[in-house]
């Protein structure tokens, strides 16, 4: 350990600021501008609270699907007037589906995931005292908080929350007479999302500026850990695509409240003709998916970045193909902005356009395949430390492959015709982006919990139970679901009893729901583990996973400014695990890792980057 911690650089000493002034409870825990505190705020609001709501909703509608029309005391208790005598109402079913999708995609996996880990890790891993603008960061969180409050508030209004599906296609979402949820519920949804987008943009701009400007001495772009690359590129895609969703939301607000006709035309509903003329719902679909598809990668890339870092650390091997990984991230990011039309093959748009989008969509499989193979090769001949974080990372690669492969079916305009909007799609995207991103997030929590909570560690045995139960249940829910979709069952059906051809699928529905309920229970294990570790977790070593990255060079105790003295200087990439000299000895004798702060040794070559 001799050389490890002494790579301080004197000329950084002058920005040794900020941790002497007095902090009150409010500035420390509420309106904090410290990235570590903001990360925790994001995690608790975005992941624990919104995640709990989102998953709980999915369990409710899974129960309805397995036992259609059955009365459950829990429905009556939770849904109240929406479940007369304990039988779920069809309108609230759609509302649950809609809000589940919204919460999980946007609140949990976009801001919850990026907000937590970009905030926690960007400054710590690039060697910065904090984000470029702590104030903007704080503002970003509090706007996120407000948007959460508005979204949750919409659950309690008279006519019920938005129920047009998370994609809120007009005219259904635009006309209150089309369904009750399209009244005030949809207004609140749009308001909440508008604030959310502002929050997301503030956050993303901050991440980009921080990564570009605040890297410590020696931290060139090609020495950045892959986590940072992933967060950086994710933020860029967010900046490019979220404004388009904002414009779609604004135009929809105009159509709804001010009588414009951007998305509406020729409508006859409830016995009267509406005045709208000349708009097109297809335009909305284009605008929505211009965000919506990059959004999938906004969700997924941070999880992949986290996995890269954790897998390399725990395999005690460098990540295989570091540059190829960066190239893949960039390729995925670029392609992700030109594939949105594959959600619209049968929307009525010109079939030629469908051909173009098929082409770009199947191209995106190439960088994805490269990533998957690189992960597998990273495991090869490693010395795998199977910590819970590592298991979740391996689990991510597994679901990423399983879910990604069916993308080849859905991305092909021809094959999409018959499985479009069926449960096949639901199975596909839950595995490839939902479960994978959740695994990435869990991996991150188990791995960086000591950095979030001053050295405390989470209980590994509860972590193992959490992983194995979740892993089995995730496949248990979503693997059979492909068959339900291939049998032709459309998604967003309140029940399948109106079609005798779906009768025999009831058993599959029950099986999936039982797995889902067990998976839900397993998440409570995680919540228990998290909360009890926050209060009673045992403090572990400063660098528990023997990792190379800079965050482990900071003290266990949190200080504003991160490093007690000067900011460390970086001399190598983040992946010198098990590196040996020509005699086959470790670079640092007796230690299989070489932190980034260690200067190159005599005769040592800086390899592979």
């Amino acid at each position, binding site marked *: 350990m001799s050389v490890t911690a002494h790579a301080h650089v004197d000329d950084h000493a002058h920005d040794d600021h900020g941790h002497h002034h007095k902090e009150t409870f409010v500035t420390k825990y509420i309106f904090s501008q410290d990235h570590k505190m903001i990360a925790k705020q994001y995690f608790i609001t975005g992941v624990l609270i919104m995640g709990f709501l989102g998953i709980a909703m999915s369990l409710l509608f899974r129960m309805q699907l397995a036992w259609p029309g059955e009365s459950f005391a829990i429905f009556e208790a939770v849904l109240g007037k929406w479940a007369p005598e304990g039988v779920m109402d069809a309108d609230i079913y759609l509302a649950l589906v809609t809000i589940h999708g919204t919460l999980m995609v946007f609140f949990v996996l976009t801001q919850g995931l990026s907000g937590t880990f970009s905030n926690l890790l960007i400054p710590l891993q690039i060697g910065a005292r904090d984000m470029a603008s702590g104030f903007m960061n704080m503002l970003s969180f509090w706007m996120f908080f407000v948007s959460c409050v508005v979204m949750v508030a919409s659950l309690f209004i008279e006519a019920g929350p938005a129920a047009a599906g998370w994609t809120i296609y007009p005219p259904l979402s635009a006309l209150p007479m089309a369904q009750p949820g399209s009244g005030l519920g949809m207004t609140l949804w749009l308001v909440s999302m508008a604030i959310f987008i502002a929050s997301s943009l503030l956050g993303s701009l901050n991440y980009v500026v921080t990564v570009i400007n605040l890297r410590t001495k020696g931290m060139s772009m090609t020495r950045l850990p892959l986590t940072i690359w992933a967060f950086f590129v994710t933020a860029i895609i967010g900046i490019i695509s979220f404004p388009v969703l904002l414009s779609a939301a604004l135009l929809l607000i105009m159509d709804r409240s001010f009588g414009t006709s951007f998305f509406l035309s020729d409508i006859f509903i409830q016995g009267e003709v509406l005045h709208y003329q000349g708009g097109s719902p297809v335009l909305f679909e284009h605008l929505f998916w211009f965000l919506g598809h990059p959004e999938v990668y906004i969700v997924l890339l941070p999880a992949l970045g986290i996995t890269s870092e954790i897998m390399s650390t725990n395999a005690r091997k460098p990540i295989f193909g570091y540059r190829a990984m960066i190239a893949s991230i960039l390729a995925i990011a670029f392609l992700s902005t030109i594939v949105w039309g594959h959600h619209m093959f049968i929307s009525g748009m010109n079939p030629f356009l469908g051909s173009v989008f098929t082409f770009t969509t199947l191209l995106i499989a190439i960088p994805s395949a490269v990533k998957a193979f690189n992960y597998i*090769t990273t*495991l090869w001949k490693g010395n795998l430390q*199977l910590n819970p974080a590592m298991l979740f990372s391996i689990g991510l690669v597994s679901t990423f492959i399983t879910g990604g492969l069916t993308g080849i079916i859905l991305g092909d305009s021809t094959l999409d015709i018959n499985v*479009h909007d069926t449960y096949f799609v639901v199975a596909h995207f839950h595995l490839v982006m939902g479960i994978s991103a959740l695994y990435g997030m869990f991996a991150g929590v188990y791995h960086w919990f000591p950095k979030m909570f001053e050295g405390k560690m989470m209980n590994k045995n509860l972590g193992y139970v959490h992983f194995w139960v979740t892993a089995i249940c995730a496949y248990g829910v979503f693997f*059979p679901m492909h068959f339900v979709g291939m049998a032709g069952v*459309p998604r967003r059906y309140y029940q399948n009893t109106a079609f005798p051809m779906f009768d025999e699928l009831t058993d599959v529905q029950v099986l999936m729901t039982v797995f889902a309920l067990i998976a839900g229970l397993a998440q409570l294990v995680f919540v228990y583990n998290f909360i009890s570790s926050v209060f009673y977790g045992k403090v572990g070593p400063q660098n528990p996973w023997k990792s190379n990255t800079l965050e482990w060079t900071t003290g266990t105790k949190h200080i504003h400014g991160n490093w007690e003295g000067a900011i460390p200087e970086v001399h190598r990439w983040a992946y010198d695990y098990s590196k040996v000299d020509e005699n086959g000895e470790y670079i640092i004798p007796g230690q299989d890792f070489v932190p980034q702060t260690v200067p190159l040794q005599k005769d040592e070559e800086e390899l592979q980057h």
Partner: protein
Amino acid sequence: MTTVLILAVLVLVAIAIWQMTKIFELSQLKAETSQIANDSDNKTNGYLLFAFLIFIYGITIFSFWKYSKFLLPEAASGHGEDYDYLMLISFVIIFIVQTLTQALLHYFGYKYRGEEGKKALFYADNDRLEFIWTIIPVIVLAGLILWGLYTWTTIMDVNDEDDPIVVELYAQQFNWTARYAGEDNVLGDANVRMIDINKANILGLDESDSYAADDIVVKELHLPVGRKVNFKMRSQDVLHSAYMPHFRAQMNCVPGMITEFSFTPIYTTSEMRQNADVRDKVKRTNEIRAERAANGEENSDPWQFDYILLCNKICGKSHYNMQMKIIVETQEEYDSWLAEQGTFAETVLKQDSSETAMNMQ
């Protein structure tokens, strides 16, 4: 009863989780407090990774064994065969890749589980390997793309060759209506602004358009076998999607525009009822239904196979029950059925003129 069972299962699972935690704890050799994986954790979880690989294969085999009979029967449309073949090939490719990659991933996880003092291999890059696994997907995907695009262009080319019949599918919350173009095989103009509920002009046909007079509006879709059908889709309120899974056909219905899809049915309904897979499916379903009838539950009438048109785009409260029966029959049967249906002139316009006559009196 079910509630009690579920509760029982959940309680048992909770106990199982608690017990598993205990097992993980007890399986650790020393009473150590470190939360970092040690050799025994690596060993346990390495073996579990291998077991998980078997689980993945197991659930795959189980699903195919138990559920592949649920899949849609043989395609009943001209292009459906190409569709099914492309689907099959894609699935074969997917399953090869899935089986291999999952095996490598989990086997490596098991094989290279950590041990104190073991040295990992510093292996950061290999251009040739990376080239190989870039180029293989490129070639495979290029093949799939070209094939897919060829099929797509063929399917989506809606033209007037082969004397197609023209049928409008009209969607509204929460039912379907079909309109046949009649003798002239041209649909009359229509717009929601011309809907006149009082006169039962529910599709908003232009009463002054001569092409509209012979149009036939019906609530059940009849198609002659072997004849190409050009569908024109409309919606009057929100987005719907006309999904005809047995024909491998789907197209959204969009208010304000007319969308199109075209296919040729190749099996009549009665031929399809004789299809072995369909017969098995009907038999299984009717067993379930008989059981329901015995228990006095709903949805217990015996079922006979029919082609069906479903709504497959969320459209509101009764989205789950927006359907129309499709009957494919011989040309003669179709002709005689069609002859029985009144044209727009006979139903709506006649009523119109009789009303005018009444007013004049």
